């Protein structure tokens, strides 16, 4: 693409950027932006993209063991969506001047993170339902406000993702409802699954506000629209009536309606566990990265074949053109 022929002063550029963000307009890829804004976005969008890709693993492992063709088709479609979401986000991230290969390399080297929730195992088939209901539910809570994030390509990717995410949550809830109408054993399976996922789902919103050093700047830049604690509260308030409809409980003795606040009170997640998983010491961290590395390596022949086929088509076209 052609470059600017005039170079406005640094102050003027900063002013234009600030005014654009302040008036709730979007920053687009070729606009000038502060280096910190760019870096924060690369970190956040890459983390988000990696989460979608790594997030295929816990549920993907259940595709071959789904109990019916219907459930298998649904799960396949869902996991395929996660791949698509990862690609929308990688595409958005690349507009910030990082290459796809670089992003993959940083993930595999452990230098960029993905959501800690995917470092927990999916131990039973009911986890497929719980992940759809609670994990995708929490993701929706996080993602809906991101549709209005200040960086255009990220917001547009989030709009596409949110449209598709609703299917994920509903199929999970329906799966659990079906199991709750089954045997005592199936109901116990659902409750056990919910018990394991409730606290990690609450941790998906990130550390408490007073322990989240980057939040204030991200909000000032319009990248984030709500604080971690605000979104966590919103998720708890949404989830309690859904749990009642389902007939399960959350493993939190402090969970109760607070008339005065107009919100549910709830207990404190185990933040030591959170930091432990974030820093690499969760139940599945090593397994997830090893699997991603393996699929990357095993995909070499596919990439090679695609390149060879493209090369062959190009040669054939040239021959036809010259002959």
């Amino acid at each position, binding site marked *: 693409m052609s470059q600017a022929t005039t170079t406005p002063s640094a102050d003027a550029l900063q002013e234009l950027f600030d005014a654009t963000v302040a008036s709730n307009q979007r920053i687009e890829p070729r606009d000038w932006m502060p280096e910190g804004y760019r870096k924060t976005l690369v970190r956040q969008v890459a983390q988000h993209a990696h989460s979608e890709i790594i997030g295929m693993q816990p549920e993907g492992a259940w595709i071959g063991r789904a109990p019916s063709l219907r459930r298998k088709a649904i799960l396949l479609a869902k996991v395929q969506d996660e791949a698509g979401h990862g690609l929308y986000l990688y595409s958005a991230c690349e507009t910030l001047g990082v290459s*796809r290969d670089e992003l993959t390399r940083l993930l595999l080297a452990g230098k960029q993170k993905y959501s800690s929730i995917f470092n927990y195992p999916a131990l039973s088939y009911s986890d497929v339902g719980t992940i759809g209901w609670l994990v995708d539910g929490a993701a929706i809570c996080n993602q809906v406000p991101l549709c209005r994030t200040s960086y255009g390509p990220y917001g547009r990717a989030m709009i596409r993702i949110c449209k598709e995410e609703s299917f994920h949550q509903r199929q999970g809830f329906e799966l659990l409802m079906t199991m709750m109408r089954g045997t005592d054993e199936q109901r116990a399976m659902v409750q056990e699954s919910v018990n394991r996922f409730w606290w990690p789902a609450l941790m998906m919103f990130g550390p408490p506000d007073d322990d989240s050093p980057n939040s204030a700047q991200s909000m000032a830049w319009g990248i984030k629209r709500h604080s971690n604690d605000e979104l966590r509260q919103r998720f708890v308030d949404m989830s309690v009536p859904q749990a009642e409809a389902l007939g399960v409980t959350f493993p939190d003795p402090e969970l109760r309606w607070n008339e005065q606040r107009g919100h549910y009170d709830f207990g404190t997640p185990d933040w030591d566990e959170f930091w432990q998983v974030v820093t690499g010491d969760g139940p599945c961290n090593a397994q997830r990265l090893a699997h991603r590395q393996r699929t990357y390596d095993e995909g070499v022949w596919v990439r090679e074949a695609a390149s060879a086929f493209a090369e062959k088509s190009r040669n054939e076209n040239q021959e036809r053109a010259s002959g």
Partner: protein
Amino acid sequence: MSEQQNEQTRAEWPLYEVFVRSKRGLNHVHVGSLHAPDGQLALRHARDVYTRRNEGVSIWVVRSSEIVASSPEEKDPMFAPSGDKIYRHPTFYDIPADVPHM
């Protein structure tokens, strides 16, 4: 081919911008980008990535490097010619309210 060479080949896959026509009668609209070794494969990838739910009846892909774009810094001078020509808008003209179909 060694693995390293493979990865070099892979690194050369260009970026394509994807445009989807959601239904007949509407324009193609930019939806995102993807990497592919050539246009034909870019189209197939675009189908899988951007039209999993009947979002499109037609797809265009174009190499990102082929796009010529105006520069955001030139915003004012670039679009100045249309800024001061208010007579190009229908509201510029005073017509009595009782003249029909105008």
